[in-house]
């Protein structure tokens, strides 16, 4: 309906993110609204969600880190254990956005998505911490677990009826899920019964791991994409306290424990995409951004070997593109911002950092 701008890739290329290449670096492409609803109910950064609401469309800039990730995904061998990709960089440079871009590529290729939008949310500010029903030394987080299961259901609807459980799971004396039941039932069990939802999450992850590399062809074949944002939360400290007022370790939380198992590369048929994050992290200094600093020793040993992908501020071309995009959408209302001088001021004040530029333009 709107005439395409010179730096937004025309509609024919939107659907297939496979066609994104280095030539498109710096240009914007639109995420189809249906995809946004399904894939990213809570995955995108909050400010970007606001922007989608304002502009009535979600436009993502194609940038080298995301292109690098996608090219690795295209060339990887999926019969071998999954490769771990870690996006790292300074605050506000676009790690989460690159992760979402790569995830959108996976989704459009028909993969099964396991997306943890922010692992830090599982490690702090938990209202209800129940002792686990299955194991005595662990703690459950029913609210977070059921929320995640709901999101998982929305994203991967078409797989729910196809996949079947491989063993019998007993939740309580009266409830159990038999072998051979569709995955959808397992998830419903977790959503309806909050008490055992964390265990259900563990069961779901285990099933996916077992079945991902299983059948290479035929109906049950699928590739698994595990995307975790803020992966340094898994090995850091929590800000949760047990009943006797001692600090909780990450291993003692069921969700974290199961997610750590996912991070190991003892399965096949997929890829693990992760991004570090300092902004939500607990007890980490603001200047830390390298993997070794944020993951800590334990995390680094667990994640090794991984493919690091560094994300940095905009370069000249990307900044130009972002500036033109805002101008095009009439986001920069102030008349001075349209001039050369105004552009130089924006470059100086934001130092071409994407998030700072966005916040700056928000009140111009």
């Amino acid at each position, binding site marked *: 309906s709107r005439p395409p701008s010179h730096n937004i890739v025309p509609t024919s290329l939107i659907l297939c993110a496979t066609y994104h290449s280095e030539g498109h670096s710096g240009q914007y492409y639109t995420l189809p609204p249906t995809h946004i609803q399904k894939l990213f109910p809570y995955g995108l950064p909050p400010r970007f969600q606001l922007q989608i609401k304002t502009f009535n469309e979600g436009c993502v800039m194609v940038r080298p880190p995301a292109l690098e990730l996608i090219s690795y995904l295209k060339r990887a061998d999926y019969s071998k254990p999954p490769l771990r990709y870690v996006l790292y960089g300074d605050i506000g440079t676009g790690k989460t956005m690159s992760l979402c871009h790569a995830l959108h590529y996976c989704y459009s290729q028909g993969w099964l998505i396991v997306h943890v939008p922010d692992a830090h949310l599982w490690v702090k500010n938990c209202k209800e911490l129940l002792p686990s029903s299955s194991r005595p030394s662990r703690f459950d987080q029913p609210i977070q677990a059921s929320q995640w299961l709901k999101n998982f259901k929305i994203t991967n609807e078409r797989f729910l009826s196809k996949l079947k459980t491989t063993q019998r799971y007993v939740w309580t004396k009266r409830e159990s899920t038999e072998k051979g039941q569709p995955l959808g039932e397992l998830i419903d069990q977790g959503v309806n019964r909050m008490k055992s939802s964390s265990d259900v999450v563990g069961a779901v992850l285990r099933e996916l791991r077992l079945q991902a590399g299983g059948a290479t062809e035929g109906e049950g074949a699928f590739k698994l994409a595990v995307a975790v944002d803020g992966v340094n939360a898994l090995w850091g400290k929590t800000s949760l306290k047990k009943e006797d007022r001692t600090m909780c370790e990450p291993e003692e939380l069921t969700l974290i424990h199961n997610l750590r198992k996912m991070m190991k590369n003892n399965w096949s048929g997929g890829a693990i995409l992760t991004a570090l994050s300092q902004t939500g992290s607990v007890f980490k200094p603001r200047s830390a951004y390298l993997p070794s600093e944020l993951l800590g020793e334990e995390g680094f040993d667990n994640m090794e070997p991984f493919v690091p992908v560094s994300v940095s501020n905009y370069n000249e071309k990307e900044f130009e593109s972002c500036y033109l995009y805002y101008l095009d959408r009439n986001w920069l209302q102030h008349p001075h911002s349209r001039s050369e*001088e105004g552009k*130089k001021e924006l*470059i100086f004040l934001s130092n071409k950092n994407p998030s*700072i530029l966005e916040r700056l333009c928000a009140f111009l």
Partner: protein
Amino acid sequence: MVPQLPLRQIYVASSLWKKNLAAAGPQKFTQEFIDKQVEEFEVGKRHLANMMGEDPETFTQEDIDRSIAYLFPSGLFEKRARPVMKHPEEIFPKQTAIQWDAEGRPFHFLFYTGKQSYYSLLHDVYEKILYMRLIQLMELLLSMPYCSLEEEFILKFRKQLEVQSSKYEIPALQYDPQGVAFSVADGRRKSAKASITLRDSGSGNITINGRNYLHYFPVLQNREQLMFPLLFVGMMGRFDIEGSVEGSGHSAQAGALRLAISRALLSFVSEGEVEKMRQAGLLTADPRIRERKKPGQEGARKKFTWKKR
């Protein structure tokens, strides 16, 4: 015999005895008094010269000030409260000469207007122009041909404004081994000290205390402060800045850096620009300092709770 009239003591209120000090006006010194003071001053000056071992003939006012400061050292902050020995002309206030003669008749014909000099000036100018239009017509006068004939008259009412920008010392422009020009400058604000090196042919990178300015100053206001001198002069992407700053808080550090940048820019900029920068307030050091806490009060201005009873 004189009849003795009854004597009655008249009691008058004591307030009538006291002199009404306010009505007397400023203290009046007679001319003889002042002459006597002048004599005493001269004599005292010679004594002082002898005491200090100097020659009484060539003893100047500066020497007097020096000797008094030496003989009577004072730790008082108020300079006017310290012991002073000056010529009586400077100490005693000058009296306006009496403006009327012995019979009470004023000398000036316009005395009773109240503003005798003003009206007399009007009278002078009235031949040429009315005062209400004085300035306008002065300029009209100037714009007319042959105004140089009246130049002396006009200059009486004109004051020369000094251009003060020449008083700033511009930091010297030094050159790198590679031939790149750079200058070094300092700045201070409220106990924060900053020192920067401004290098030419850069790309607008700014490093402060080894960290990028985006990390060092997360607040937008401080980055705007850094940007202002460069924006004003119009040389935004041209320089690389490397700075170190310490002390005080983040706003004061930003202010100190701004002053340092403006001073360093002086060596890259022309004379007219220097004047413009001065007028924009970029080169003035902010004199505001934290006010002292006073005894009897909570803080510098805040008082203790006021109780009526």
